[in-house]
């Protein structure tokens, strides 16, 4: 997929610095920023992965773009949306999928109600049309028995199924940008791969831009067009996925890649030499 270089980016971030109130490690009496002087362009329709370890600022970046930072956080720099006249309508133009699907869903409302509500609120649909749209979305995220699922409660679903519901709710209003913040980290390998495939397909079908936050660079390698590596609140490397993986420029990226233990890594223990069964 060629980089849409000449086109206007969907989001343009310049000099973004985010400091949380009462944040950790006061530096010269002031709290250390979670994100520092970040410049980033996200092109419309691309899949950008933001990779980092804890404290890298990757979640802060996602929350800042989505306008979900706490009121007490200090934000410097700017986030511009060239395509939008009055900025994106939060909840409608940006969809957000969180790490813990159980915590994202209201346990006392049915799945149908929660997904339909998004469509109702942001698209102004009546309940009947909203429910129809919800059923349609649940089918798109491949939830088994999408019609029956409308009446189901979150606790009746597995972790992977709950996350599919969260994705359905996130795209219900037809957003331009879908942000997945460690959306697969709480899931096992098989479900993780399924969700990644789902995200790839949905963003392709709808022409959505995907911002995929993760600590797993291998996972990003299979999904992203571009990868941005963050460390201690700064972007240390941004580039096309293949290039970042095969020929990283920054030592930290190289360290992250080396630390990944894949199926082809050298074993750290000697093989069992004919022990019982």
């Amino acid at each position, binding site marked *: 997929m060629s980089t849409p270089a000449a086109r206007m980016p969907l989001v343009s971030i310049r000099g973004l610095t985010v400091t*949380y109130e*009462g*944040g*950790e490690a*006061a530096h010269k009496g002031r*709290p250390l920023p979670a994100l520092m002087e970040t410049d980033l362009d996200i092109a419309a329709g691309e899949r950008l992965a933001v990779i980092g370890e804890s404290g890298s600022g990757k979640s802060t970046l996602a929350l800042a773009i989505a306008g979900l930072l706490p009121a007490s956080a200090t934000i410097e720099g700017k986030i511009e949306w060239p395509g939008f006249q009055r900025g994106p309508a939060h909840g409608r133009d940006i969809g957000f999928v969180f790490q813990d699907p159980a915590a994202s869903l209201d346990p006392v409302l049915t799945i149908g109600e929660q997904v339909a509500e998004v469509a109702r609120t942001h698209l102004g649909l009546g309940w009947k049309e909203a429910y129809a749209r919800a059923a349609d979305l649940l089918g798109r995220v491949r939830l088994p028995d999408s019609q029956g699922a409308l009446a189901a409660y979150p606790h009746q679903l597995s972790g992977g199924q709950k996350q599919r519901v969260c994705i359905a709710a996130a795209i219900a209003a037809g957003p331009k940008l879908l942000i997945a913040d460690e959306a697969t980290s709480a899931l096992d390998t098989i479900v993780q791969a399924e969700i990644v495939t789902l995200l790839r397909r949905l963003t392709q079908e709808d022409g959505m831009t995907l911002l995929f936050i993760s600590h797993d660079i291998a996972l990003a390698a299979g999904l992203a067009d571009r990868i941005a590596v963050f460390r201690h609140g700064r972007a240390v490397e941004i580039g096309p996925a293949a290039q970042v993986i095969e020929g990283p420029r920054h030592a930290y990226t190289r360290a992250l890649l080396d630390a990944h233990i894949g199926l082809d890594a050298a074993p750290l223990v000697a093989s069992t030499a004919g022990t019982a069964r």
Partner: protein
Amino acid sequence: MRGPGMSRMARFFRSPEAIAGALILAALALMALVAPLLFSSDPLAIAGPPLTPPFQDWALPLGTDRLGRDVLAELFHGARTSLVVGLAAAAASLAIGAVVGTLAGFAGGLTDEVLMRVTDAFQTVPGFLLALAFVSVVGPSLGVVVAAIALSAWTGPARVARAEVLSIRERDYVAGARVIGMHPLEIAFREVLPNALPPVLALSSVIVAAAILTEAALSFLGLGDPNRVTWGGMIAEGRAVLRSQPFLSIVPGVALVLTVLGIYLAGEGAVEGTAVRRGLS
């Protein structure tokens, strides 16, 4: 992520309610502490001519009651009684409730069933009637009044503690304690109970307020400690002359209202403080 941030005290004092409540309680505590110093003589001793109205004689700022006792002195000493009873009853009921709730929640099974049925039994009897019956049988004294109040007030903390313990029981660190071979009783009281306390302690303001009111009611009915001055007793005394000298009942009544209000406000402020802290992390 936790940082230096605001200490619990600082957050408590952020809300105007908390400050108001704290001020009232501070005044109360001051009255209680200062009482023996300011009014060194027995408050039940005759201080002046009976039924002197308030604000007439500077030596008797709030006047005197039917027997000529100094109302201000009685008020201050009454504060001691209310405070002692309130705090002691709350401490006793919280302690009993926490232990019962923790045992029930942690042991489960038959122990849980038995303890909860006992809790039900104590909870269904109206607290005041139970206290009334207990004091009537055993005899009125401060200790008995405290016991009488605790006898029904422990059920609330017990239920809250049990609910917390049921949730904490499933946490990893409790499993971890079992894996290292810790004795179940040690796990219950060293690992679980201290972490179950915060919501239990949140009940304390309600219990203190209720205890003070119950004590006042018992005293009003003549079942309080006859050797002590209590606000309830003062109100009872003032009943006989309610038409002509209403201040005798009103003054201790206002003191009761302000005290309960102060406890409520301070309790709300404390809840605000912990709630914000939980939300941030």
